[in-house]
């Protein structure tokens, strides 16, 4: 019998998504798996009935049934269900890619305190619960009625880690400050940060979703989101001189949510989001997209280093060492400003069992700065801890000592990093001195007024 074929067409509104190389799954009527492939590929199949589905990172499914005749090529049109559609063409990327729940801005119950910074209230329970010392009780978080049994929060206060001079003080009863966004450039590990607000572009006003484009530089960049009464959030910005990234704000019933960062390279962003949502089957398929081909991404210095880093991280995480070849070495050597090149190359060498070379490579991180992706920070800290525990019987003493110094630098950040977020995100008013304190006041004029983005 002559085989037929399936070709796929995505039915989105925006040109970015129409051209997306989306993982699709093809099944027979008995549900057995025929193939996992990409929407750009033609799939040869035996004549018969097929079910085709594509899952988007935010959870929407696009599916269709198709009958393939002998020697025929059938086009499968995949469209979002009407109730899943993006409300606006310009919002499609964030609508279909970003799933993280939009947290409500913290409600402030007390008057502002002069220059006081306090950690976010945190439940003090560890399975069974921390003893509720404030109440002198022996409460447990074990259910039933778990909520009622949670120990009350303890909220120690302490002063800002960043010079008090730089924090504008408003005193009790001061006017509410608007949320603001600002950008820094430089190496956080060396404490060498410069304001770089000029890299932000003014977005057009929108009632629901706003994207602020950030122009890149060949330097690590981070953006800080300031909201009165909340912990300042610092996000690494995966952009460089030839590629932007965007900071996405959504406004819901609770107000403006914490922003998220999206990459300019949509397939790399897709790959990142699939992993964030634990959709690993889709992530594996996405790594096979021609848009993620290492040779193209790292062709020369005009390549796509951010997307290449995302691809390399995915292959490391998904255990596909055999696909990395010299990907990691080229990434590290061609883009010497990119911290992730070091984290990725070092982890790759470690996985190959060349731990001395891995340590050498990791030591280069100090001069580049914090990785832009949390996976990178995790790799480096775990490896350096391991090498320290193995000790001098296996490693050069001087290098080990340098590794301890680097580890100590990185460990300052680790407690404040949101490892659930693929793009490095941590708290602290002074990005070089992370902490868990919320901020009651900040300069009125820094960066951009985020509330002004919304009509």
């Amino acid at each position, binding site marked *: 019998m002559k085989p037929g074929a399936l070709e796929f067409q995505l039915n989105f509104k925006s040109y970015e998504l129409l051209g997306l190389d989306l993982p699709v799954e093809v099944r027979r009527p008995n549900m057995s*798996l025929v193939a996992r492939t990409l929407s750009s590929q033609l799939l040869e199949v035996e004549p018969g009935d097929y079910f085709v589905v594509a899952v988007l990172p935010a959870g929407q499914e696009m599916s269709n049934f198709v009958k393939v005749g002998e020697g025929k090529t059938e086009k499968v049109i995949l469209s979002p269900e009407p109730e899943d559609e993006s409300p606006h063409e310009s919002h499609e990327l964030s609508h279909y890619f970003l799933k993280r729940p939009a947290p409500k801005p913290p409600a402030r119950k007390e008057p502002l305190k002069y220059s006081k910074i306090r950690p976010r209230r945190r439940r003090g329970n*560890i*399975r069974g619960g921390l*003893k509720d010392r404030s109440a002198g009780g022996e409460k447990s978080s074990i*259910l*039933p009625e778990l909520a009622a049994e949670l120990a009350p929060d303890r909220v120690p206060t302490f002063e800002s880690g960043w010079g008090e001079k730089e924090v504008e003080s408003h005193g009790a009863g001061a006017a509410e400050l608007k949320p603001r966004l600002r950008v820094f450039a430089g190496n956080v590990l060396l404490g060498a940060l410069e304001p770089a607000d000029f890299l932000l572009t003014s977005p057009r006003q929108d009632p629901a979703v706003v994207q602020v484009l950030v122009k890149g530089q060949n330097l690590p960049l981070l953006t800080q989101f300031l909201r009165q009464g909340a912990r300042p959030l610092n996000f690494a910005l995966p952009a460089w001189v030839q590629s932007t990234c965007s900071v996405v704000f959504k406004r819901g019933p609770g107000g403006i949510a914490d922003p998220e960062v999206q990459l300019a390279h949509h397939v790399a962003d897709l790959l990142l989001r699939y992993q964030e949502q634990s959709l690993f089957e889709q992530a594996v398929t996405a790594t096979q997209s021609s848009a993620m081909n290492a040779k193209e991404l790292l062709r020369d210095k005009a390549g796509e280093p951010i997307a290449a880093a995302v691809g390399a991280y995915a292959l490391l995480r998904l255990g596909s060492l055999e696909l990395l070849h010299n990907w990691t070495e080229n990434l590290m050597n061609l883009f010497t400003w990119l911290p992730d090149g070091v984290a990725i190359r070092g982890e790759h060498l470690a996985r190959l069992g060349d731990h001395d070379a891995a340590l050498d490579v990791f030591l280069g991180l100090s001069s580049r700065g914090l990785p832009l992706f949390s996976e990178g920070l995790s790799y480096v800290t775990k490896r350096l801890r391991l090498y320290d525990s193995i000790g001098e019987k296996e490693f050069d003493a001087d290098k080990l000592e340098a590794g301890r110094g680097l580890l100590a630098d990185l460990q300052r950040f680790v407690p404040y990093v949101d490892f*659930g977020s693929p793009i490095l995100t941590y708290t602290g008013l002074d990005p070089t001195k992370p902490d868990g304190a919320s901020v009651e006041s900040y300069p009125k004029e820094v960066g951009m007024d985020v509330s002004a983005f919304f009509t």
Partner: protein
Amino acid sequence: MTLVYDERQSLQGKPGLHALIAGVSLYKHLPNGGGVTGTRGFGLQQLSSPAITAYKIYRWLLDNKDRMPLPLVTVRLLISPSAAELAKEPAMAAAGADPCSYDNFAAAAHGWRDDAGGDERKMTLFYFAGHGVQRKKSDAVMLMDDFNKPFTGPLSKAVDMENIFNGMAPPADTSKKIAQCQLYFVDACRMVPEEFNNLEWLNVPDVWGVDKSGRDDRVAPIFYAAVPGTEAKALKARTTFFGEALLQCLDGAAGEAMEQNAQGDARWGVSVYSLAKALPAQIEALNKKYKVAQDWAPGGLVKDEIICYMKEPPKVPVALEIDPQDALPYVTIEVKDYAAGAVWDLKPPLQPYPYEDSLPAGFYTFTAKVTGAGAQNYKDYVRLLKISPPRGEWKAKVSS
């Protein structure tokens, strides 16, 4: 005795599955633990769900050993149960498990690793439930039942998950082999106690010394019950939420059809990736039911591998609704499977409403057929649907 299941003799070195399962509810040196209470308990209290959960995981393995991709060869079980758990599950006392003290755990871990060695086709499973803490946000420290023993260091009776994971890496000496498929489940909190902020880095004793590893391309996912900085949750004397969700997934909620076999039938199974996809939905359902905020996080090396096969497609809860509801007296629901076999024929009015039942996972044709006087405002509605875990929902839109 820790080795509660041992088929090494009968399997004579054939590749198989080696499990290390531990659960601590009774902490001897925390308040009401029966021992002398130490001074560095970080405010932790007794638990009443990890031991029974570990026991249920062990029972699940025994009851489903013929579904595993490799024969079950050994199970090492360590449990320190609370009185409430023993009352609820008296068989636990007769399981032959030793208490999960640090020394017992370390000895069991060494035996487990020895059994996992020698052949990379072997498979391991690790499950720990109990108190857990973090020193920094990227680690996971598991507390054994003698944690907080007087005159010992704060975390001297604790185990660092990283040490376990690194010690199971393939050795640099390529003549030495170890199981390439290693599944880890850590059902413990990952909070940083406030006291840690006032202490220097707290050392945790190594269960084993770790040397430089060789090429590490293990299948070695770690399923953590909590994301860094959060807690794991449980019902008193019942399975932990994570354990409950995990067992539901292994029993079918994470079931997925794989490639068809030579006979043309779909084979069903739970894999690392299908488990990672299904766990959030199961946990979310428990969160809604109990109004809690249990989370989870994947770690380790997330490569796909079959965890267990299924004998048949999983049963999926399905809910049916008629839109608009006024059409209820006129709508007959017919559901046929892909082979056109009728599975449901529901006469009007649909009762109970919304209608809920379950179907084996698969493709079905759902038909809402409108009949009877007064039905002229409505029309038939037909859809071909994929019904797959965790739940199927269908709304028959019969408005004309």
